[in-house]
């Protein structure tokens, strides 16, 4: 039994990683197609553009969730007793949900953007029927059910081993300075808690909108609906990075030879992030329907800065552990270090976005996709790629070939430049979510497409190579 814990990634995690790799690649291609359409380099109809945008948005968010879960499951399983059945059950719900979502989008024509903001889904204007919207929302609901099972299992296992969430978060350690839980357990506990809540809230709003779809007399308050959807969406997407960052905590020490020790500030930071998510979001939601401006802005700032404590601590600890260590560089370790810088860089535009004046101007421009592409692409996805590569190399450091080096650089530079183009477009007031761009914006979209192609090609090289490593030993066994 105990041997298994030291064994390389077991079946479910491999399947998760493989699916994540393939889907990330596919969704990146969708993204490239969208950007090229905006640059008028492809003759795609607007309705297809919006279908692609909906698929890209929900697909990326869901797969970041799945990839993050793979990281969390894999490493958390080294400390607590997780039962593989739940990982498979989650996957089954996930895939069924995905089939429904894709059916709703590409067969039913649903294209209300992944945030399915009320009352858009019910107003297809002939583009989609209510069954398409129902398939989409039902699919998202199923994905949520699977994830709920997954997190309940991790909650159970954590409580079984550590007694309670309070201990798993390290609160006793703050007092006594003894028995700190591992970083992985702290992070997993935070994610488990906030995602259970996010999923419950998501379930409420999705069911509500499904009811509204079939019983239109029962109207939903649009502002409340929007707040709920954003709460669910923001918490969920933020938590993908909290799961993925576990890869940094677990893998980086293998390269530097320095263990990732848990200090009090680290415990404080995770608890603070958790607390910020749990208190401020619902607060800003339960307030009166007619939201005053200051509350809106507060909510925005907090939603963007809630990850700051964790980020700051992770960044300093990473720098500390690399500094003057004889870190061995290979693709995995390079991607990990890149991801920490990507995540940090992504926070800068987020904070700018959160501040009042800018928020007014940039709110609906490409600035917004700019900031989240920066930290999701260079942070979250990069961590997932590092993890995929790590298990492909059987959890050992490997060589760093010239091809790998060049692919890493192409990826880093083009991803950064790609996100920068979004930010620059945002500054030039190019609106987000427009299929057809005005002539004066074309240059932005075309240059961005070039970088997007760079991302796609380098990511493809990395993923295909890792895929080989993941699949091959399974065949032999």
């Amino acid at each position, binding site marked *: 039994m105990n041997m298994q814990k030291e064994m390389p990634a077991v079946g479910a995690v491999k399947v998760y990683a493989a699916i994540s790799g393939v889907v990330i690649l596919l969704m990146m291609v969708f993204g490239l197609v969208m950007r090229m359409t905006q640059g008028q380099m492809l003759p795609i109809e607007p309705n297809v553009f919006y279908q692609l945008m909906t698929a890209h948005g929900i697909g990326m968010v869901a797969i970041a969730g799945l990839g993050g879960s793979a990281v969390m499951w894999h490493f958390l399983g080294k400390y607590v007793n997780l039962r593989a059945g739940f990982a498979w059950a989650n996957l089954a719900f996930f895939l069924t949900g995905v089939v429904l979502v894709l059916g709703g989008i590409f067969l039913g024509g649903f294209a209300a953007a992944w945030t399915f903001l009320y009352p858009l889904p019910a107003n297809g204007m002939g583009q989609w029927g209510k069954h398409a919207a129902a398939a989409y929302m039902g699919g998202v609901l199923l994905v949520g059910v699977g994830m709920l099972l997954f997190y309940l299992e991790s909650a159970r296992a954590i409580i079984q081993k550590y007694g309670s969430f309070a201990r798993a978060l390290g609160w006793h350690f703050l007092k006594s300075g003894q028995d700190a839980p591992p970083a992985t357990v702290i992070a997993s506990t935070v994610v488990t808690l906030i995602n259970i809540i996010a999923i419950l809230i998501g379930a409420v709003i999705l069911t509500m909108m499904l*009811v509204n779809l*079939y*019983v239109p*007399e*029962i109207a939903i308050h649009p502002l409340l609906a929007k707040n709920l959807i954003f709460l669910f969406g923001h918490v969920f997407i933020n938590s993908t990075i909290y799961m993925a960052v576990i890869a940094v905590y677990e893998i980086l020490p293998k390269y530097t030879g320095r263990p990732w020790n848990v200090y009090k500030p680290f415990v404080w930071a995770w608890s603070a992030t958790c607390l910020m998510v749990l208190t401020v979001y619902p607060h800003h939601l339960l307030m009166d329907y007619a939201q005053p401006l200051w509350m809106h802005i507060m909510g925005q700032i907090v939603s963007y800065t809630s990850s700051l404590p964790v980020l700051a601590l992770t960044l300093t600890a990473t720098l500390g552990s690399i500094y003057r260590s004889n870190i061995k560089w290979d693709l995995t370790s390079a991607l990990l270090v890149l991801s920490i810088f990507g995540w940090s860089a992504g926070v800068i535009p987020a904070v700018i976005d959160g501040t009042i004046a800018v928020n007014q101007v940039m709110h609906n421009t490409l600035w917004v996709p700019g900031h989240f592409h920066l930290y999701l692409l260079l942070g979250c996805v990069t961590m997932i790629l590092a993890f995929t590569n790590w298990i492909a190399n059987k959890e050992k450091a490997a060589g760093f070939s010239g091809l790998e080096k060049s692919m890493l650089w192409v990826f880093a530079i083009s991803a950064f430049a790609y996100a920068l183009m979004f930010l620059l477009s945002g500054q030039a007031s190019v609106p987000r979510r427009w299929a057809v761009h005005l002539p004066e914006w074309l240059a932005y979209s075309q240059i961005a497409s070039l970088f997007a192609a760079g991302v796609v090609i380098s990511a493809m090289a990395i993923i295909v190579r890792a895929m080989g490593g993941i699949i091959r030993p399974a065949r032999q066994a």
Partner: protein
Amino acid sequence: MRTAAASVIFLVLGIWATCAITGGFELLTTEQARRLDISRKQPAVPEIRLIDQSGQAFHFGAWVREENKFLIVDFIYTNCQSLCRALGSEFQQLQQRIVERGLQSRVHLLSVSFDPAHDNPAVLQQYAGHMQAMPDVWTFATVGDARELDALLRTFGVTVIPDRMGGFQHNAALIWVAPSGKLVRVTDFDSSDSLLDELTGSN
């Protein structure tokens, strides 16, 4: 294994019951069920004795067939401060529309009070005046025998419950009766205009 069997049985039972009560997942409320039921079954107007605002008594069903018009019916009580006002102004607009288009010979409006204890013909007459109702377009009536009220309300799918302040709460809908004396449709009170076109415009 047995647990799985038991779970499946419960699940099937649950889905079956839910399906049954929601009419195949199409409706959640009694009001919806009622409307669907009326437009499917098209029950006939009961032969109940009504009294109009001039104190004249008539048999409901027979009267509809005699008049040979489309009838739009709502249910009200004159003391109402809320819903019935909305229904009233809806009927006023309909009345105007009917006169404008000269549809008097094809469509008639009928407001039935479910508060016969208070709304006697004199009260109804006054209310009609207040509403500027034209007698040849818009009739007010109530039941002659209070015991027949239940049957009438049931056929038309109207629930009336006394509130705690001497008034009533009731569902507001316009019920369309064909010249044959059958109930054909139930609509909300802001969608009647297009239906007027549909029912009368075709011939």
